[in-house]
Structures are given as C-alpha cells and as structure tokens.
C-alpha cells in the first residue's frame, strides 16, 4: 500500500506543475528545446558564416551581405589549394601537431607516474615547476627560445618546431595526467606487482589502459594546441613550404588587405581535421569514462 500511495501521490502534483501546450507538449520541454535551439544557433552561426563566406565571390563578400551565396563559387578553395598550396600547410601542421602530441603524451605519462606514484624529495616542487612552465606565456619565451633554437640549428625546420612545442605541451600534459593518475587507486598496480609484475609492467598493463580516457583527452588538448599555435610557428618557420596552417592563414593577410574568401576556405579546411578528431575521440572518451565509472 505504501508503495502504491508513493506512486500515486506525486502524479497529480506533477501533472499540475507540468502545464501543456495546445499540442500536448509540456511547456517545460518546449522551453528546454527553445533554449537549446538558441544555444545551437549561437554556436553554429559563426561556423555557418565561415562556410557561406567561403563560397562567395570577393565582390559579394563585401557588397552582398546575404545569408546565402548569391552566386556560389569554388574560386576561394581553388585559390587556397592551387595558388597558396594550403595542403602543404595542412601536411606540415599534421606532422608537427601529431609528433608533438605523441611524444609529449608519452613523456608526460612517465613523468606523471613518477610524480604521483613514486616518493622522492622535491617531487612536490617539481610538480609546481612544471605547472609554472606551462603557465609562462609564450610571448615572454619566444626570444629566449629563438636563441636556443638558433644555437641548436633547429630554425626553419618542422622537427625544430616539434621540439619547441613539446616545451609547452609536455608540462601541460604532465599536469593533466597527474590529476588523472591520482584518481586511480594505487592498489590496482600493487595487486599486479604482488602477482609478479614489475613496476613498469604494472604501469603499462594496469595504469595506462585504465587511463585511456585521460590519455586521449590530454592528446586531444595537446594536438589542438599545437594545431592552432601561431606565434612560435611564425617566428621559427621562414620558408613557405614549411609553414603550418595558422601561419598559412596569417599570410593571407598582407598589410591592410584581408583575403576573406580564401581565409574562410582555409578556416574550413583547418577546422575539419580537429572536428573529426574530436568527433571520433569524444566517442572513445565517453566509452572509456563509462568503463572507469563502474570499476571496483
């Protein structure tokens, strides 16, 4: 009886509170969907604007401020890909961002493990120094870095840029992974070591697989950061055939002239890999996080 009364009592109250529209849809639901729609419009409109501009002629961009291209054209993509060799920029960014990401995530995983699991003097201070290294603005570091890069003969090279990016990506990844590793009970690795695994084996077989969502998240953040980085690439890369995507886009602005059509086409092109990566990895991250939530 008690169960019945509990089920029955709230029902009228819920019905009373949920006023419905003439189509029978609760106003609350309508409000939620309208809010979501507005948020989606705010988020998606710049992307739509970017797309629509990329299909407009240069004249129409300035003179016909319409929501849809009046005379759709692929001329901006043609300019970008054939005259400006933008695919070379994409290739360079991909090489630099992926190399910097994988190397820094690998190093960071080892560093984070050491800082979280091992006990030695000054490890707290080292952790803070790593955070400070990440927090230092790159605009303050570009002069000292340029001296180092020149002395190491790494100027105007993609591998030089990978190493430069690692100076920012590694502290960032380490800091993020430290937080993630702290959330995983050490008992699991200790269990593996009791069963005969070495410490390194326990880390590789137990900790890292359980940390897959964290590794992926850190990887995505690092990749995106390296993909979008402009200042250092602008300083350290000189040759046209080694420019990364942000530098390539920057070079579409000369003086006070903005080539809006090719810039927007370039923005579409450069956004695609990151969007795809997020789409794929987000799914994987959700799976991993769900797996982690039922553990233990």
């Amino acid at each position, binding site marked *: 009886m008690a169960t019945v009364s509990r089920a029955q009592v709230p029902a009228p109250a819920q019905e009373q509170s949920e006023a419905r529209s003439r189509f029978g849809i609760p106003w609350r639901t309508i409000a939620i969907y309208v809010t979501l729609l507005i948020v989606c419009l705010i988020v998606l409109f710049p992307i739509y604007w970017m797309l629509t501009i990329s299909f407009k002629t240069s004249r129409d961009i300035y003179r016909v401020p319409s929501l849809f291209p009046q005379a759709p054209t692929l001329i901006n993509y043609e300019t970008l890909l054939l005259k400006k060799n933008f695919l070379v920029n994409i290739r360079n960014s991909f090489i630099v961002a992926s190399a910097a990401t994988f190397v820094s995530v690998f190093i960071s995983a080892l560093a984070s493990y050491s800082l979280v699991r091992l006990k030695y003097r000054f490890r707290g201070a080292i952790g803070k120094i790593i955070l400070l290294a990440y927090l230092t603005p790159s605009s303050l570091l570009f002069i000292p870095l340029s001296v180092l890069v020149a002395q190491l003969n*790494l100027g105007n090279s993609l591998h030089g840029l990978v190493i430069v990016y690692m100076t920012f990506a590694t502290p960032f990844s380490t800091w993020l992974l430290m937080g993630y590793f702290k959330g995983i009970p050490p008992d699991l690795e200790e269990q593996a070591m009791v069963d005969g695994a070495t410490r390194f084996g326990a880390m590789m077989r137990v900790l890292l697989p359980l940390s897959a969502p964290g590794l992926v998240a850190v990887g995505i953040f690092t990749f995106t950061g390296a993909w979008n980085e402009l200042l250092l690439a602008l300083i350290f890369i000189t040759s046209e055939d080694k420019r990364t995507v942000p530098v390539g886009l920057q070079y579409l602005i000369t003086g006070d002239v903005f080539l809006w059509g090719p810039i927007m086409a370039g923005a579409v092109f450069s956004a695609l890999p990151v969007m795809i990566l997020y789409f794929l990895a987000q799914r994987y991250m959700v799976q991993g996080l769900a797996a982690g939530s039922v553990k233990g």
Partner: protein
Amino acid sequence: MSKRNVLSRRALLGGVAGTVAAALVAACGGAAATTGTGGGGTAPTQANPFGSTVPTATRPAASTAPASAAPASAAPSSAQATSAAGSATAARAATSPAASGPITSTGKMTYWGGLIFSDDANNLLSQTVKDWGRQNKIEIDVVMINQNETNTKVAAAVESNTMPDALDMGIDLMLLLSNTSKLTALDDLYAKIGAAQGGWLKGTEDATAPAKFGGSRNGIPFGVSGNLLFSRKDVLQKANVQVPKTWEELAVAAEKVTKPPLYGMGLALSNVGDGNLQVSVLQSWGGRIASDDGKTVTLKSPETKAYLEWVTGAYKKGLFPPGATTWDGAGDNNAYLAGQAVFIANTGSVAITAKANKDDELVNNTGFSALPSGPKMKISSFGPNVRAIPRGGKNIDAAKALLEYLSNPDFLNKYYKVAIYGPVLQNQAKFDAFADPIRAGLLDLAQNGTAPGFPDVSNTAYADFNNNFIIPKMVQRVVIDNYDLDRAIDEAQKAGEAIYAKYK
C-alpha cells in the same frame, strides 16, 4: 566491465610508437626534402649568415659581367625580363665600391623581401633576387616576409643572431635598428645610386637623413607609402559636392552624403596604424606632439583643443561609421569595399583590392586626391621603405651588390607597375608606371608630401608615442567615455610625457 571498453596496452603502445615514428620521420624527411629542392635549407637559412662555419666560397666576378653572361634561359619569362632589366645594373656594379672586385658570399645568402598584397610584385622581386644570385653564382634564399610580421621576426632574429643578409623594412623599424647599431652604414651605396639616377627626391632624402639614424644612411629607399584621399565620385556627384580641399570641407561634405549605412568619414579612430592618421590631422590644425627639439611634449594647446572639438563634433553627428573607434587595420578598407564609406585615407591597397574583386562600380567611381589641409597647414605624411643590411653579416659586400642591383630603373619601373609605392629618385618620376591615377597620386605624395612626423621631430620617442596610439585614444575618451575635451587632452599630455621621459 567489458574488456573492449579499455584500450589495450598493446594497441596503445603500438599506435603511439607507430605514429611517433611516422611523424618524426615525416618531420625530418620533409625538412630534408625541402632543403634539397627548394634550395632553402632548413637550419642554414637562419644559422648560416652569422653562425655557421661553412667555408667561404669566393666566386669569380660573374656578376659584373654583361647581361649576356646571365643564364637567362634558366629563368621563367618574368625572370628573363628582370634579368634583362638588371643587366645594366650588373654591369654598373662592376664599378661600385661594394662590388669592385669579385662578389663573394659565405655560404648561402638570405634575403627577406617585404610581402605585399600584389602577388605580381612579390614574384617579380623574388625572381629578380634569384636572378642576381644565378648571375653571380651565389646561392640565395629569398623569403617573402609578411610586412605585418616583420617586427616580430626581426626581434627574434636580432636576439638569436640570425638576421638575414639583407631585408626590406619600414622607416620605423630602421629607426629602431639604427639606434641600437644593428644596421650597416650604406652611405657610399646611397650616394652612388642617387648620383646615377638624378638624385634622391627631397622628401626621401630628408626622411632618411643620417642625423636621425645614428649618423649614417642605413637603408636604400625603394618606395614610399602614404595615404591618399579616396572618394566616391558617384555619391559626391549625386549630392552635388566637390572633392574637399580641407578637413573642414570634408566634414561638411560628409554631412551631406551620410545616409546610413553609407557614412561620409571612413577614417579610423581606433588603436591601429590607420588611427594615427589623426596625428597628421591634428598637426594640420597646428597642434604639436612635442617641441622643436623633439624632447618636450607640447600636446596641450588651443590648437589641439580646436582639432579635438572638430573631430569629436563630426563623430557625434554620426559621420563616422559605427565601429570606427574599434576598427582593425582593415576597417577602412572593409567599409569602403562594402560601399559604406564615401571618404577614406588609404595607401592604394583598397583600389587594387576593388580591382581584384572585379567590383567595376567601385573601381570606376573612385577618385584619388591628396589629403586635405587643415586650418594651419597641409600634412600629407609619407614614409620611405628601405632595403637594409644587418651589421655583422658575413656577406655585406654581396648584399650591397644585391641592393644596387635592386635599384636599377628597369626593374623598379616594372615593380612600381604592380606594387603600390611612390618613387624615391628624381629619374623615377618619369617612369610610365606613374601614369595611372593611383600611382600618379603616389608620385605627387613622394614629391610634395611631408616627411614622417613633420612638423614634429620623428625620433624614437615620437615613434613610441604613435605606437601607443595616444591621439586616437584621446579622441575615444571624448566620444566613448564622454570625457570633456580638456580632461582628454590632459590625459594624453601626461601619457605623452611619460613616453618622452623614457628617451631623455
């Protein structure tokens, strides 16, 4: 928990190792490949000029040979043209102090050309430099640097001792580098080029006078930039308004033609280079930034107040487009190209863009004239762009020979036809490049314009003052923050004093 939901160790390690290896190989491989094909080595580009131990390769005096010696067949058609154009200079170079002997280089040379909007101009410059290298059997890497990024790149290169052998720059950067002794004195080359081409134009001569640049000529001017007044002829005709000769007339004309979204005064009042046009307007009212010795800020004056009253009055009448106080460097261009501004002050890039956009209506209805004058004087400021040679380089003689080669009349006539620069030498005034209306305006500017900063002293403090956009900020204080005129002027005066105090 399903095991499928966890990334397997083997898969993780395999993926990481594979991708890292591939990416690193690609990074290194890509670099190596471009070194070979592009001739633009990776590290050597920056490291060679000052840091490498590449042995000196002394070349025979091929550069001084007649044009027939140049491997013209190896160059594309535009290059052939420029090869021929440069032949006379190559021959003349034989007699120059800089190139009286064989031109030698230590390792690969690097030249940073100034990238401008015109692809034709960029390609012509790049090809001409390469031709020079080919003729002299000198390996030279030409890198076109976006002028928006030159300062940042030079700052890093100076600190890391990786400056190129020669580079293009604006006069402000030359001032900065000259005052820190980072440039090679080029007095001999400057005099020689001037003597060969009828002498330098007076404005250019004054603007690069040694007194302002550490006692020497530290750059070879190759073109002047400055603002012209662009106006919509069709709109003015419809309103029966003449092209204004004074700023006050311009405001009156603007009032007649302003019908939002079309605004009369498409002038930036924001914290960008274009916003500093207001410094010239203020000076044309008789206002001054500093005293005649360039050391004491004298902004607070009745003339400044009269100017500020005029400009803020025009703003309050709605003659400026919305957002003029926050425009970026392209704000006036965008407004004009969108058909939303009747008058703008521009270097000429907007006309080239309109032409490139095939906006015939705008192209055919755009008029060009000199900037208007103020109640006290006419300030139509221009700035020479120069080619310079960093101090301490290992290829200074070769770089001098290159700069002389790039000053030859045939090349520059072709260059001016596709770039947007006014002339710097007397003989260049006769170039057919300056026949078209925009470039005729630039010629007029080069001949009759006022030197940078005039009537103020264009020193480092003045450059710093402008870099802090004190005058546009003063205007913003009145039109945005509702300061009264005196309070805005007082604040600007104090800000200026703080800047000038740094250089006393």
